[in-house]
């Protein structure tokens, strides 16, 4: 139990520390692929540091909701990161929160952000909130379907036991997971505001989705929200790794095993980030009204994955 | 190999090879003046051989030739005989038709070559579909016949013709793929019983083990095969291609389509139904056929009155009759099957005869529109009479052979499913009224001034020659009607024996 708690703490710390680095790594890879001079890996940390030191300016008509949302969103994302089996599957906290709670927490964070964006009453905030809710309401069922497909095999919705089963079965090809994997990749891109759905580096307000939500934030608030965004990307990457590439997790709770699991995780994240950068470089951003089609495809793939699981039993 | 077997083999070779060789030769010389007569000659050889083969089968029983690749019993011999016979008369009609059309310059030389080659190729494909023992080969032959028909329907390259051909290609292609899936499933079911070898798709083997085939697989297989070959047969709701293809293709081919392709598709469905009945031990297959048959008759009856094109009118009448056939065979049992076979024969004869007449009426008036054909009786009495008599026959009036067959079907349906019989009767009455009205308008009334004033190039002869010409042109249709009349008045003993043998194949 004590080891479990230690492992949990280590995972939590690793998440907070690695999340900005993952975003930095993706930005770096993108820069390399586009023949630009890459920013340093720790650039997001530098930005966070800068934001945390700056004064926080808040609109005059902002309600307390506006002030509390950054912390709440950050808390949601932090909890999400702790209930995903990143280093080991023995997570004391994961007992109370299964896959459905995970999706719920992500939804909660989204609703809070949208409310805050509309709170001040600017046009872009409301526009962004509307777009973000549209993406969210289409993306959540996909994520649920993907998680359910994996849960069908483990006969449990607990993430820890799903990953446990997936990591310890004998080598077998599972077509259902192939479908789920494609669907999950598509939905991750949409949820994290990446190309082809959104462009994280855009400065063009009209095309913004996620950035439009945070236009009114500054200083420490903005730092927390950006940190939360990197945590979200980290969480999605870890879900992907846990479901589709669960090898290398700590087999038991000994500190050595946990420490060995960290480099494995870093390596997998590095590969994943590289793939994400490649995917973003080769594709173009789609028009906003194509997004429902895109997510519709993801949904169909996820459902087919589940059906194939039922048909083939694998 | 004994004498009877080698005789059968020789006749079978004639039936299949004569049209195939003719198709190749006509592919090269199809544009020469003699090609039309060569076409007739090839068809004569085929028809003669087929009739002799049929006689042989009635006398000596089913033929199984060339290491079981070919199989003909009384049922397929019946369909084969009528198919080749109608092909022969169609080729006779085609002489006159092509003469007129070519004189008008409608077809280029290349198109004439395609026309004649494909005409014979369809005859070959239909013969193969009827005589193949392998269900896969049956599929290939049906698809071959479809492709050849597509080429002929689109022959004059006009936009409506291309569209009709495209529709035919796409719809029948989709349908026939369902049939292929059904064939695969059939193979799967057979494989479970007799193992994976070439014999697992041979109909004779399948029929032998039909009670041991897995019911679940066969249900799905029959459903797919029924949809597939039902599309070819023109059953509602898979009928979309039929009216257009019939209206746009050269009429002799339309006659072949209507009389024969539909019949051959029905033959394929019957083969599958025999297997399904054996495997399922329930009348599901028959009920499926009755359901779709009824639907076809009803829709056709409702749409007949709205048709403005003569050949579309006849095409919808084909849909109606295919529906009646599906009902008759769906009912099962010896009496209903006999009625179905009689109806198949009668419809093939009368409908192709009607198409011959329609072709001449269209050539005479220069339009396919019913409203454009007026006063036929005054201008072309022989043609008008053959059209009128054909209509009487197709409506199922006595004394033609469609009357007893329809009557038997309805009375059996009345015993088994009174409500369905009521629906069928209502539909038949509506169809009757629509067709009568349309044909009355064409034949009676004032002759058209324009049509008479500008006759086609085929009508320059005068005096007694003109009359002989008219009679010769109407001869194929009249011959068909005469046979239908004879069959309707009294069945000769040998024909009755033949029909009984065919009924035994279907109804067991």
């Amino acid at each position, binding site marked *: 139990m004590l080891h479990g708690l230690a492992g949990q703490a280590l995972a939590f710390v690793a998440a907070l520390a690695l999340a900005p680095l993952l975003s930095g790594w993706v930005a770096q890879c993108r820069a390399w692929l586009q023949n630009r001079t890459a920013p340093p890996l720790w650039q997001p940390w530098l930005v966070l540091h800068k934001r945390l030191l700056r004064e926080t300016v808040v609109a005059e008509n902002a309600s307390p909701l506006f002030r509390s949302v950054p912390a709440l969103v950050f808390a949601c994302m932090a909890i999400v990161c702790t209930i995903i089996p990143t280093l080991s599957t023995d997570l004391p906290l994961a007992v109370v929160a299964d896959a459905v709670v995970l999706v719920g927490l992500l939804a909660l964070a989204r609703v809070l952000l949208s409310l805050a964006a509309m709170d001040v009453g600017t046009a872009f905030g409301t526009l962004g909130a509307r777009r973000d809710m549209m993406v969210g309401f289409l993306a959540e069922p996909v994520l649920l379907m993907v998680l359910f497909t994996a849960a069908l095999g483990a006969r449990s919705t607990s993430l820890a036991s799903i990953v446990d089963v997936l990591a310890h079965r004998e*080598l*077998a*090809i*599972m*077509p*259902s997971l*192939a479908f789920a994997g*494609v669907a999950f990749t598509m939905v991750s891109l949409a949820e994290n505001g990446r190309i082809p759905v959104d462009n994280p580096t855009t400065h063009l307000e009209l095309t913004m989705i996620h950035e439009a939500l945070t236009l009114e934030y500054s200083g420490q608030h903005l730092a927390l929200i950006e940190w939360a965004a990197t945590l979200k990307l980290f969480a999605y990457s870890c879900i992907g790794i846990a479901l589709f590439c669960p090898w290398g997790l700590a087999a038991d709770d000994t500190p050595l095993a946990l420490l060995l699991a960290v480099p494995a995780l870093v390596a997998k994240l590095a590969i994943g980030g590289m793939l994400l950068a490649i995917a973003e470089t080769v594709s173009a951003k789609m028009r906003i009204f194509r997004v429902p*089609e895109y997510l*519709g*495809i993801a*949904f*169909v*793939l996820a459902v*087919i994955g589940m*059906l*194939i699981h039922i*048909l*083939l039993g*694998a | 190999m004994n004498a009877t077997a080698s005789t059968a083999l020789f006749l079978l070779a004639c039936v299949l090879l004569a049209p195939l060789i003719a198709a190749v030769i006509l592919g090269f010389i199809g544009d020469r003046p003699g090609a039309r007569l060569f076409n007739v000659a090839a068809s004569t050889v085929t028809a003669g051989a087929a009739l002799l083969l049929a006689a042989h089968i009635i006398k000596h029983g089913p033929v199984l030739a060339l290491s079981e690749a070919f199989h003909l019993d009384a049922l397929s011999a019946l369909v084969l005989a009528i198919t080749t016979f109608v092909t022969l008369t169609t080729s006779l009609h085609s002489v006159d038709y092509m003469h007129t059309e070519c004189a008008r310059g409608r077809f280029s030389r290349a198109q004439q070559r395609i026309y004649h080659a494909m005409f014979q190729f369809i005859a070959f494909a239909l013969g193969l579909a009827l005589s193949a023992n*392998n269900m*896969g*080969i049956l*599929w*290939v032959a049906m*698809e*071959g016949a479809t*492709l050849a028909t*597509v080429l002929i329907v*689109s022959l004059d*390259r006009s*936009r409506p013709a*291309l*569209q009709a051909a*495209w*529709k035919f*290609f*796409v719809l029948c*292609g*989709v349908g026939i*793929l*369902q049939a*292929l*899936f059904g*064939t*695969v*499933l059939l*193979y*799967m079911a057979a*494989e*479970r019983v007799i193992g*994976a070898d*070439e014999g697992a*798709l041979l109909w004779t083997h399948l029929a032998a083990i039909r009670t041991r085939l897995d019911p*679940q*697989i066969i249900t*799905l297989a029959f459903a797919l095969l029924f949809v597939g070959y039902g599309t070819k047969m023109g059953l509602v709701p898979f009928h979309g291609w039929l*009216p*257009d293809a019939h209206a746009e293709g050269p009429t002799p081919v339309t006659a072949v389509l209507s009389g024969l392709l539909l019949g051959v598709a029905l033959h394929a469905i019957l083969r599958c139904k025999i297997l399904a009945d054996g495997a399922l031990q329930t009348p599901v297959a028959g009920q499926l056929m009755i359901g779709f048959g009824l639907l076809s008759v009803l829709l056709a009856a409702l749409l007949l009155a709205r048709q403005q094109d003569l050949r*579309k009118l006849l095409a919808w009448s084909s849909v109606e009759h295919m529906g009646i056939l599906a009902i008759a065979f769906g009912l099962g049992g010896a009496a209903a099957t006999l009625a179905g076979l009689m109806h198949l024969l009668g419809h093939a004869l009368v409908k192709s005869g009607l198409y011959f007449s329609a072709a001449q009426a269209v050539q005479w008036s220069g339009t396919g529109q019913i409203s454009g054909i007026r006063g036929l009786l005054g201008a072309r009495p022989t043609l008008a009479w053959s059209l009128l008599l054909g209509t009487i026959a197709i409506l199922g009036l006595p004394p033609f052979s469609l009357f007893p067959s329809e009557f038997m079907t309805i009375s059996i349906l009345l015993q088994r499913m009174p409500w369905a019989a009521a629906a069928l009767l209502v539909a038949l009455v509506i169809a009757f009224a629509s067709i009568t009205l349309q044909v009355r308008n064409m034949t009676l009334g004032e002759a058209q001034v324009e049509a008479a004033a500008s006759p086609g190039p085929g009508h320059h002869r005068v005096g007694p020659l003109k009359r002989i010409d008219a009679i010769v042109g109407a001869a194929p249709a009249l011959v068909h009607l005469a046979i239908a009349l004879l069959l309707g008045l009294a069945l000769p003993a040998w024909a009755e024996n033949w029909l009984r043998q065919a009924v035994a194949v279907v109804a067991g």
Partner: protein
Amino acid sequence: MNALALQFIDLLAAVSLLLAFALLIQRRFSAMIDFYATQSLVLVITTSLAGWMTGQRHLYLSAALTFVLKVVLIPVLMHTLLRRLHLDSTVDTVVKLPTTLLMGLLLVIFAFGVARPIAQLSTALASGTLGIALAGVLIGFLMMITRSRAIPQVLAFLAMENGVFLAATGVTHGMPMVVELGIAVDVLIGILILGVFLSHLHSAAPSPGATAREGDGA
């Protein structure tokens, strides 16, 4: 090892279904042709794998035939046709894309439901392929309905045919060789006729298939 190969066949079947969906929603003609070629390639691999597992020589022949015909010849022909006729515009779908997707999903559910009891009876290789193949055929059918232009309709036809062949490979050990040869010849001739057709239709007016459905209710 054998179990893994079986699972691999299942995976290939699933990929073929995925490609069927890709064909269903793809808007550009040339990309559709490439998807079709890929789907055929998947079929080739499946057939060869089945041949290797069962030791049936004729499956290799069938795979080779599929490769030559459907991976090389037909796609090349269709690409040529596209270039010659300058047809590569966006497809005018009759039904909205999300609706199409949803209908496709329902068809997959239907196909799986129908095939499940039968799949359990199969003594042959991969039992799951029947449902997937049936779904592929139905999706091709749907594509036939939702697309109004000629090229997508033909590709739908060909995709359906691929589905049937997948069933033939996965559920039985392939059809007898005579039948496969006959089918291949038919398909080839069909495609050739189509080429002639398209040329004529196209020279007659700019949008070939758009009117091919008119008069459906007649």
